[in-house]
């Protein structure tokens, strides 16, 4: 088995294992989705019935919901490793640490994409936004944002996994780092929904892609040191 094939196989096994655990532990998945939907719903009510105001706020609220719910998801994908010494066992397998990171980041990104697929239509309904015409660009933005967020979230979930107060520490560490990603994602979403009148969409998408590349390389290179005692 070639090294690359083995690393891909390990990453897929980890992502698959976490996906099975997530689907079977229905309560956690449902509560994450409910939480994300509630964020949109409550802010929608708080902003009032003005359609223009709702449409302006929609991109920001979509990403707020995605990031908050995403934090819960990436934290949980590491929390399963804290049960009965699973993390130690994971580190004792003769595998490249980068493939463990890749697997965890992949399932984190997948969770964000599922959340995005559910929240975008919800946003369209609650905030009366027409998303159909912007769907391809919107999908690209969500994909790039999900990868970047999962790259950072997985790294910091690795930092906090052995901490007692990891649920508190994870958002405190992740949110400042993903600020550029959030800014770019919100701006790109806004540009996509409004038809990009100022031609700024490519620049924001480039920033998102650049953020993803840098964070994935940094995360993969350092994750191994984090999970080993």
């Amino acid at each position: 088995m070639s090294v690359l094939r083995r690393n891909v196989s390990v990453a897929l096994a980890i992502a698959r294992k976490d996906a099975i655990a997530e689907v079977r532990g229905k309560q956690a998945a449902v509560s994450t989705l409910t939480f994300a939907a509630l964020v949109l719903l409550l802010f929608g009510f708080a902003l009032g019935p003005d359609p223009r105001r709702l449409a302006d706020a929609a991109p920001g609220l979509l990403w707020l919901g995605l990031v908050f719910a995403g934090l819960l998801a990436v934290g949980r994908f590491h929390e399963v490793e804290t049960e009965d010494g699973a993390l130690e066992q994971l580190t004792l397998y003769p595998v490249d640490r980068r493939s463990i990171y890749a697997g965890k980041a992949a399932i984190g990104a997948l969770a964000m994409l599922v959340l995005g697929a559910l929240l975008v239509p919800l946003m369209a309904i609650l905030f009366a936004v027409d998303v159909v015409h912007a769907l391809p660009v919107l999908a690209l933005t969500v994909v790039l944002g999900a990868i970047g967020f999962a790259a950072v979230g997985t790294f910091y979930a690795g930092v906090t996994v052995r901490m007692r107060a990891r649920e508190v520490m994870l958002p405190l560490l992740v949110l400042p780092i993903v600020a550029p990603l959030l800014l770019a994602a919100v701006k790109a979403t806004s540009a996509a929904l409004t038809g990009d009148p100022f031609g700024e969409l490519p620049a924001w998408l480039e920033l998102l892609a650049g953020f993803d590349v840098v964070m994935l390389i940094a995360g993969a290179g350092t994750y191994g040191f984090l999970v080993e005692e």
Partner: protein
Amino acid sequence: MPEHPLREPASASMPQTTIYASPRSVGAPEQLPPAVATRELARLFGGHPALAGVTLTIPAGRCVQLVGPNGAGKTTLLRILATAIRPSFGSAAVDGLDVSAHPDLVRSRTAYLSHETGLYDDLTATENLSFAATMLGLERDDTRERVPDVLDEVGLAEVAALRVRGFSAGMRRRLALGRVLLARPSLVLLDEPFAALDEAGIQLMEDLLDRWRRSGVTALVASHATEHIAGRADASVQLEGGVVVGVEGDGVIARPPAHQPQPRRAIEVAP
């Protein structure tokens, strides 16, 4: 000054110059590197030495029991050899490979059964072992073939499709043992392997120790259940306070620590 119980003639206390006996397996090469070789191995936890200068050489193919009271350093020694933790001082090598310099190569040669099972509750027994097989580098066909065999061997074939969450402590232990069997290691590190096992489980564990012994796999077993290991172990190593205080049996060589590390003292503050 009384003679230290481990003090031996110079020729016997120099691990690097010892010619080791070949393991029991037929046709095994002679003069293999020792399965385990530690030199002044120490590990501190918060300034307290859990291991305090262990120099130990175990030839390949032996079954060695680690004995000693709670806190003697048995688990710490096993965890260092399994690469779960790093030594604070000194060195440890498995099959001639330093655990700090070549952790991945050491991991591919060792299997560690710890107090914790490292299983995923929401996965079935089959899924847990299949995941372990992928992580251990088994090909898909090999995994498909071996996982049911291993589950059968550890007596969990009937509950293979059930989630581990509902398993008893003994069943979890058996499944973790199945993971050890999948690994096909040259060094097996077992921490209280008889804990939580019923009579059939104990018999299974005893049979496995016999099988490993016959096939030249080195087994290092930390256990208080001497009655189950007595006839199987080639040697026993007595640990106390993080140092080796006695060795019985054949082949294993230990030396007393050159320096006895002291626990870090609290800083006294003048009133």
